[in-house]
């Protein structure tokens, strides 16, 4: 797995999908990200990343039931695959490893 490096946006998207668990569909992900991270996310950017992650095998998706809202269009729910979970875990450990290697005073100063 070591070769597959996640991009920052990809990581954030995957984490958000993980947070939302069974409710992770396009618009909900955007809402969640805008709320938590305070940044603008366009549907285009998000959807491209979602498809890419799906192609890489980190996410899987399935269509939900049709509802009366949103013009009767079905939602596509995303889930983390086990490969996705592994890569998230790996990324987290890499980050932590890096954090742990940083001398404490540097961080304090920089704040």
């Amino acid at each position, binding site marked *: 797995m070591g070769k597959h490096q996640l991009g920052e946006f990809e990581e954030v998207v995957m984490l958000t999908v993980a947070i939302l668990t069974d409710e992770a*569909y*396009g*618009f909900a992900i*955007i809402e969640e990200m805008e709320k938590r991270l305070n940044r603008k996310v*366009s*549907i*285009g*950017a998000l*959807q*491209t990343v979602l*498809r*890419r992650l799906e192609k890489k095998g980190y996410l899987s998706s399935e*269509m939900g039931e049709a509802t009366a*809202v*949103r*013009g009767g*269009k*079905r*939602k*596509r729910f995303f889930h983390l695959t086990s490969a996705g979970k592994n890569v998230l875990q790996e990324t987290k450990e890499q980050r932590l490893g890096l954090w742990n290697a940083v001398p404490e005073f540097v961080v304090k100063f920089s704040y």
Partner: protein
Amino acid sequence: MKQPPKYPLHFFRWFCHPDYVEDIEGDLLERFEKRTNENRSARWLFALDVLRLFRPGIIQNFEGTKKLNYYGMFKHNLLISLRGFKRHKAVFGINLIGLITSLTCVLFSVLWINDELQKDRFHAESDKLFQVHSKFTNVSGITVSRGVTGLIEPEIETQIPQAVASAVSTDVHEYTLSINKKGFRVKGRFADFDYLKLLDYPLLSGDATALNEPTNILITKSLAMKMFGKEDVVGETLDWHFWSRENTFQIAGILEDVTSATSEPFEFILPWTFYHDELINYKGWGNFYGRVLVKLDDLSQKSLVEEKLNEIFQANQSNENVELFLTGYSDRYLYGKYENGEQVGGRIEYVKLTSIVAAFILLIACINFVNLSTAFASLKAKEIGVKKSFGASKRNLAFQFFFESLLLSFLATLAAILFVVALMEPFNQLTGKQLSLLPQPMMIVYFLLFIPIIGIIAGLYPAIHLSRLKVITALKSKVLGSQNHKAWGRQTLVLIQFSLSILLIVGTLIVSKQMDYALNKNLGYDRDNLLYFLREGQLFENGQAFISELESIPGVQQVSETGFSVSPNMQNRTGGLDWVGKGEDQQVNVWENNGDAHSVDILGLELVAGRTFQEVLNNEKESVIFNETAIRMMGIENPIGKTVEHYTGKKEIIGIVKDFTTESLHNPMEPAMFFYRPERAHYIMVKMENGKEFETIEKLETLYKEFNPSYPFEPKFVDQDYQAMYDSEMRMANLSHIFSGLAILISCLGLFGLTIFQVQRKVKEIGIKKVLGCDRWKLALSMTYNFTKAVFLAIIITIPISYLFGLRWLENYAESVQLSMSTFAIAAGVALLIAWITVGSQTIKAANANPVDSLKDE
């Protein structure tokens, strides 16, 4: 609820990948709803979101939409075809090699044929131009010539208004041109000013009206470069020599170089007025020294013009034996042959022959493709079955096979074009042409048309046949159908292939036999080591001195001043002969030679009666020697000592020689006569000792340069001249050798492929037979049996056909070889042998294989 903006939504639906469209649209709408509730500029933001979705990951792929679905099939077919090529390398290779070879032949033939058909047709008004011909009838038959009297041309201008223009010229001859005593042997013609108006030989500089003055000359650009080393030579002068004449002409214009599209290329034009006034002694209606061209605006008036031409002619010289008529100017090259006064083709025969042979070769290669792809279809049966059960229609499957043959023909055509470019040089040497692909980009486009043509011809049968397979049979049985049924079709095709090949072999054999016969035939005169050159300049004034010097050269056996030439352009014939007992219609056109006392001996002609000329006698000028045909035609009995009346006076018959061939074997033996008129002889002829030709010629040249320094020494051999008359035939013979060799090769490739296939299928059978104790030779024999049958049938079918073709071709010759059984036997034997070798190598290999190997894998 507010509606989202329409156009961005439509745009989104159009570009979005169909798999994603639903959920992303839902997201868009949900966001839009939320933004409307928050009362933000939702519509703009919606559009912005749509725009941001317009990116590679979201936009639909070009494959996979309904409209472009063929692309997927295309890709699939390509893949299947390429895999097929890879798996059946032998079949692919055979098909490809066969197609490339045949296409290369065909493309070369197309180039050659195109060049032939274009000859003399580049003149803008060539379809309105007609050449006046004259037809003589006499006891020896009807002869046709382009010659008419030059006096008729002014008459045409005044008396025949239907002929809107006319021109007069001579044929092309070789003359010597010189500047500062440096001579060049150059081809040129005499013509009047109208000649350049009717024919498109453009002038680069100067004026065509210059031809109205008898002292002007027009030369081509390349001749100017050759003689003067520069192009701008208008106003300069040069000397023209012919025989004993020498005249100075002023260059009045430069002509564009005459290309190979002209059948009779020339490098200069001299004024007709000079020719007519200075060179023609007898300007009568009976002297046919001119070549007249007329232009008609209304082609339907051709027969009217012919009628008037004859009226004019008969009014001036009443002669029932001569009839004038018109033929298309551009026909001179391809349709220049006359028999009994009728136009009977000519080189067009070669053009037709080449087209047929090229078509044969192409057909043979296509048959290979059909045979091999149907044979190997059994290997594809499963694939077809599976595809059909998935709902592939016949059309889909047919398309797949067409695709495969198109792909193959595409590869083959490209390769063939490359081959044509690479082999252009040797081909040009072989055919004596200057063909090139580069200045003819249209040709390449035509060539590319071969891709669909070959693809469809070759793919048609497999496509129809294989797409009709029934699903169940295709899936169930490993081997397709009953073997006999399929093999029957293939055998027929093999039969056709071999028939065509045998036809080509027989043709080649007959052609080369006739060529051998013609070139080695005893012509009645001894043409070996016989050399001649033009009698010009000093050779006239100091002729006797030169000849006695010549005779003293060791290695020179005999020298003669003579007019003998095998070239029809240089021969004299006359009808002006009277004798006692001549009948009303008994005019005889006799070949005439003017020479000195040795002119008969030097040719090695055999004397039948009387004697040859003797210098010591004073009255030799009143003597004549005839050949046997002439005496027979005139019907003179006991001819020696009798006299005939020639237009130069009374002549006594002193000798009779055996018949000899005056031109080539195309013509029958004709009447001939020799006069003692050394002063009229055009050439000096030298008979050299055998084996000493080289040193003799060197000494000749030194002597010639001494006497005639300003003339180039260009001696010619009579036997080479004779060979040159068969030049076009020789070239055709070489070409047909190559073509029939290739045809055989391609057929054998096909046979080879079929054998591989059969052996593959029968591996088990062979194994079992061997285990049961079958002899390996019997095995091999049983495998070759079918093919042998086909080849035998082909032989039986072809021999009568080729016999008829052969007879027809040999009719072109007055004297020809007999068609012997051995020719056909050789052709049949060669075909059979090659087939056996091809098939045998594979079958023996199979028969020798260890049965364990073929039986163990299951």
